[in-house]
C-alpha cells in the first residue's frame, strides 16, 4: 500500500518537473527510473521520514524576486554576500567580491550531471536546479572578507534547489558563512547542493546557520574533496527549521589533511534534524575531528549517523567522533548510529555517542542558589552546547549565533 502512495507522490513530482527538464537522458534520467522517494527501509533514511515533504507540491520560482535582505545580514560582519531568493540568485541584493584572487560567477544551468546518483532527491536537485553559483579562489589568495551566502524564502510552495561550487586552489584561504532563513509566509523545500574542492595546502572554514521556520524543509548535501595539507572546517548550526537533513561527504584525498566537523541542533516542537556525516580517510597522516551536540525538547526528533572509513592505505590516521545529546522531554527522540570501518592497522580512532538527561544534581545545585528551574536548565544546556558554539572562530558570527539562540530562549548569554 505504501509503495502505491509514494509512487503517486513521485508521479506528481515528475509531472511538476515536466518533460523539459535539463537532463531527459543520462544518469539523471536513469536515477529517476531507479529511485522512488527513500523510505525508512533504506538504511540511509532509516529514521528520516520524507512524507511531510513528498506529499506536497513545490514549485520552482521562474522570476528572481525582490527581497530586502538587510535583516538577514550578520551585524558587525564585514562580508561579501551572495543572495538567493526563493532559490534564485539575486544579483541586485548580492555584494560580490571586489578584491583580487576571488571570482564569483553565476549560471542558470548546471554544466554537467553526475556520473551517478544515490537517491531521488539528488537527481531532482540537478534536474531542476534553480541557479548555480561558482566561486573560485585563486592560488595562494587570502581573501580578506568572509563570503556570506544567504538563502531567503519569501513565498509559499517554493522549490529551491541552488547549487554552489567552490574551489579553493593551492594555498588559498577563505572563510564562508551560509545562512538559511525565511520570512513569516515562507513555506519551502530547499534542496541545496554544495560541492567543494580544497586543494593542496588550502584552507576553508564554512559556518552554516540554519534558521528556517517550522513550515520550511531543508535538505543540504555537501560534497567536499580535500587534498594534501588542506584544512577544512564546517560548523553546522541548526537553530530552527521544521525539517532539516544535512548530508556531509568529506573525502580526505591526500596526506596531512585536517578536517573538522562540528555541529549543534536544538529542535523543539515537532522539528526534525538529521545529520549524516561521512568522513573518508584515503591516505596516511590525516586528522578528522567530529563534535556534534544536540538538545531536544518537546516532540522533536534527531538523527545522527556518522560514518568514518579508514582505507588500508590510510595509516597514522587520527579520527575522532563524538555525538552527545540531551533530551529535555519524555517525548523527544534521538537516534544515533556511529559507523566505523577501519582497514588500516596503525590508526587512532574513537567514537562515542551519548543520549541522556540534564544532570539532576547540577540542576538542584543551581536551584539551591535561588536560580529558577527554567534558568537552571538554560544554564546547563548553554554550557552543554557551549563547546560547539566556541568552535565558531569569527567573533561576529559567534555573537550572531548566540543572539539567535538567546532570542529563542535556548541559551543564556
Amino acid at each position: 500500500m505504501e509503495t502505491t502512495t509514494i509512487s503517486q507522490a513521485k508521479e506528481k513530482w515528475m509531472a511538476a518537473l515536466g518533460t523539459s527538464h535539463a537532463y531527459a537522458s543520462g544518469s539523471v534520467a536513469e536515477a529517476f527510473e531507479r529511485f522512488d522517494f527513500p523510505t525508512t527501509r533504506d538504511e540511509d533514511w532509516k529514521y528520516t521520514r520524507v512524507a511531510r515533504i513528498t506529499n506536497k507540491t513545490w514549485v520552482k520560482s521562474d522570476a528572481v524576486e525582490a527581497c530586502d535582505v538587510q535583516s538577514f545580514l550578520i551585524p558587525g560582519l564585514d562580508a561579501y554576500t551572495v543572495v538567493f531568493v526563493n532559490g534564485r540568485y539575486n544579483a541586485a541584493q548580492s555584494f560580490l567580491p571586489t578584491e583580487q584572487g576571488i571570482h564569483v560567477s553565476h549560471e542558470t544551468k548546471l554544466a554537467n550531471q553526475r556520473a551517478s546518483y544515490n537517491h531521488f532527491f539528488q537527481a531532482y536537485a540537478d534536474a531542476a536546479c534553480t541557479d548555480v553559483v561558482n566561486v573560485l579562489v585563486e592560488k595562494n589568495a587570502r581573501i580578506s572578507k568572509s563570503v556570506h551566502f544567504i538563502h531567503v524564502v519569501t513565498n509559499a510552495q517554493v522549490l529551491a534547489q541552488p547549487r554552489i561550487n567552490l574551489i579553493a586552489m593551492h594555498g588559498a584561504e577563505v572563510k564562508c558563512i551560509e545562512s538559511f532563513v525565511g520570512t513569516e509566509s515562507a513555506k519551502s523545500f530547499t534542496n541545496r547542493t554544495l560541492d567543494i574542492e580544497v586543494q593542496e595546502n588550502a584552507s576553508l572554514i564554512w559556518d552554516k546557520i540554519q534558521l528556517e521556520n517550522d513550515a520550511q524543509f531543508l535538505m543540504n548535501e555537501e560534497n567536499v574533496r580535500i587534498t594534501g595539507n588542506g584544512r577544512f572546517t564546517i560548523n553546522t548550526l541548526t537553530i530552527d527549521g521544521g525539517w532539516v537533513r544535512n548530508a556531509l561527504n568529506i573525502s580526505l584525498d591526500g596526506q596531512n589533511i585536517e578536517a573538522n566537523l562540528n555541529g549543534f541542533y536544538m529542535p523543539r516542537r515537532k522539528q526534525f534534524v538529521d545529520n549524516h556525516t561521512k568522513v573518508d580517510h584515503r591516505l596516511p597522516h590525516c586528522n578528522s575531528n567530529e563534535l556534534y551536540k544536540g538538545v531536544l525538547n518537546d516532540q522533536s526528533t534527531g538523527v545522527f549517523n556518522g560514518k568514518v572509513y579508514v582505507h588500508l592505505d590510510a595509516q597514522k590516521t587520527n579520527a575522532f567522533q563524538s555525538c552527545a545529546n540531551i533530551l529535555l522531554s519524555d517525548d523527544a527522540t534521538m537516534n544515533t548510529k556511529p559507523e566505523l570501518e577501519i582497514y588500516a592497522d596503525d590508526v587512532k580512532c574513537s567514537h562515542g555517542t551519548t543520549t541522556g538527561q540534564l544532570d539532576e544534581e547540577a540542576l538542584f545545585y543551581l536551584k539551591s542558589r535561588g536560580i529558577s528551574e527554567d534558568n537552571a536548565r538554560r544554564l546547563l544546556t548553554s554550557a552543554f552546547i557551549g563547546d560547539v558554539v566556541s568552535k565558531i572562530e569569527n567573533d561576529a558570527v559567534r555573537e550572531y549565533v548566540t543572539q539567535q539562540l538567546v532570542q529563542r530562549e535556548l541559551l543564556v548569554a
Partner: protein
Amino acid sequence: MNLISINNLHARIEEKEILRGLTLDVKPGEVHAIMGPNGSGKSTLASVLAGREDYEVTGGSVTFNGKDLLEMPAEERAREGLFLAFQYPVEIPGVSNMNFLKAAVGEMRKHKGLEPLAAKDFLKLVKEKAALVELQDHLANRAVNEGFSGGEKKRNEIFQMAMLEPSLGILDETDSGLDIDALRIVANGVNALRSPERSFIVITHYQRLLDYIVPDFVHVLYKGRIVKSGTKELALELEERGYDWIKEEAEANV
C-alpha cells in the same frame, strides 16, 4: 521569634525512614551544631531543609521566617534566605562561576525588589567576598567547581554564601576532607558572616570544626531524632567519649 522552627519532622528516602520526629528551634543570630554518628540523619536534615526532591516528608512541619518552608521549591527557599553549603559541591563544566553567581545574585535581588547590580558593583562584591575565604580571583572565572581541590570547593561554598547573604546558613559537613589550614580559612569566612540576624546550622561529625566556629548549642542526632542537647561542652564530651553512651541512653529512653 524563631528564624526556623522544625517540629516533629519525619522524612524518608524511598522506603527508608530517616528522620523520625526531629524538633529544633533556631533564633536569629544563633549557631547550632548538629552532631551524631554515621547514618543518624544529619545530611538528610540538610537535604530536606534545602528542598532536595529525593526525600519525602511524611510528617511534621518547618516554619522559616514565619512561612511554611516545606511548601516551597528549592529555589524559593534560597530566595527566602536559606543557604545550604553542600557536603559534595557539584562540578558543572561549561558554566562559569561568574555567570552562575550573576544569575543567582540577580534572582535574589529580583526577589527582594532590588535593581540588578551594575557590572562594576558586582565585580567589586565578588572581589570583596572572595577575599573572605582567600579564594583566588582566577577561580571565579573557571567553571563551577570544575577541577577545584576539595578545599577550594568548600571555600567556594562559603564564598557563594557570602555573595547571597542568607539569613540561615546550613553547613553540611563542611569540614570533611579539609586540612587544618583550609579548615581555618573556611571557619574564618563563616565567622566573618556571623551577625545578630544570621543563624547557622553546622552539621559535623567531628568536634574539631567547633573549635573554630563556636556554637551556642550542640545537639546530638541519633536515629533521626535529637536525643541530647547542650552547649559547646557537649561537643568536647562527645569527642572524648564517642557516641556509644549516647546510643545507650537513647535506647534506654525508648
